[in-house]
């Protein structure tokens, strides 16, 4: 999967949205993702989805995957950095019977290999293997201080039934990490 997003430092979201030509944009955001932003976003997306003639199971999946994606950004935000590096982007769009959820946030450069290998390992799993892995991590009982479960990527992969796209953009101090989840309306 190839991501079409190319971010200029100051034009991340604008550039990103412009690249999603022909997409129906449900929501897009550029800023610091806090609990209030998550709450407002979830309320907005639920209202917008309720107006659409889509199967209920798809509406539920979009909502559920978005919850995980947003909370993933929230749990891994650069809390001790300047606001510039705490900033994230996200968008939910629909195009040709597919939903696209993008999130982008800064990471320590040292975390890049870990995140990359986590996603690569998830993307390699068969339908049966993902269930086994999910149950294994569910049963380990480990929850981080912030409430992270270690199940986020697996959950998004399992619910979307598509591989998770990603791209890392190296900047001077940190790396900007973009995650792309695709959900087929008819799958």
């Amino acid at each position, binding site marked *: 999967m190839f991501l079409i997003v190319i971010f200029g430092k100051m034009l991340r979201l604008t550039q990103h949205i412009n690249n999603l030509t022909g997409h129906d944009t449900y929501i897009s955001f550029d800023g610091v993702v806090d609990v209030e932003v998550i709450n407002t976003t979830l309320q907005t997306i639920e209202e917008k989805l309720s107006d659409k003639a889509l199967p209920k199971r798809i509406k539920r*999946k979009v909502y559920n995957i978005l*919850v995980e994606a947003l909370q993933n950004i929230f749990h891994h935000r650069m809390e001790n950095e300047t606001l510039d590096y705490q900033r994230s982007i996200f968008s939910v769009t629909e195009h040709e019977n597919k939903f696209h959820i993008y999130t982008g946030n800064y990471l320590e450069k040292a975390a890049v290999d870990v995140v990359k290998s986590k996603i690569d390992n998830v993307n390699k799993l068969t339908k049966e293997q993902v*269930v086994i892995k999910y149950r294994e991590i569910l049963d380990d009982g480990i*929850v981080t201080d912030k409430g992270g479960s270690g199940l986020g990527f697996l959950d998004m992969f399992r619910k979307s039934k598509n591989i998770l796209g990603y791209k890392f953009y190296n900047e001077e101090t940190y790396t900007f990490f973009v995650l792309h989840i695709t959900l087929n309306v008819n799958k």
Partner: protein
Amino acid sequence: MSKLNIESSAKTPLIKCDDELGRLTIEGRSIPENAVDFFQRLYDWIDEYSKSPKSKTEIDVKLEYFNTSSSKCLLKVLKKLETLNVESKSAVNVNWFFEEDDEDMNEAGQDFDAIISMPFNMVEVAEL
């Protein structure tokens, strides 16, 4: 021993626990950023209930959405009840409700059923 009643919110479920009936209900959506804080009161209630439980305990789980943070907490709740069952203090029944086209909630129920060793009823309904 007292009853536990927690009203639902936009991100947390309704919780109803009745020690006299041996009945627990978790209903709505559970998507808080940190579910551990929310579920602590339920853990505490079950620990207290476990000291003198009813001969039969029933838990109804009727969730519309839950996040992965909540999934680990839900498993902890079920494991606490499983202990009651294993130690023969109370015969515990889990009723996992899901809507007929909700494959994710159906699969989630199967995940818990695979991990937990006690009667686990998958209850398919037209609408929650």
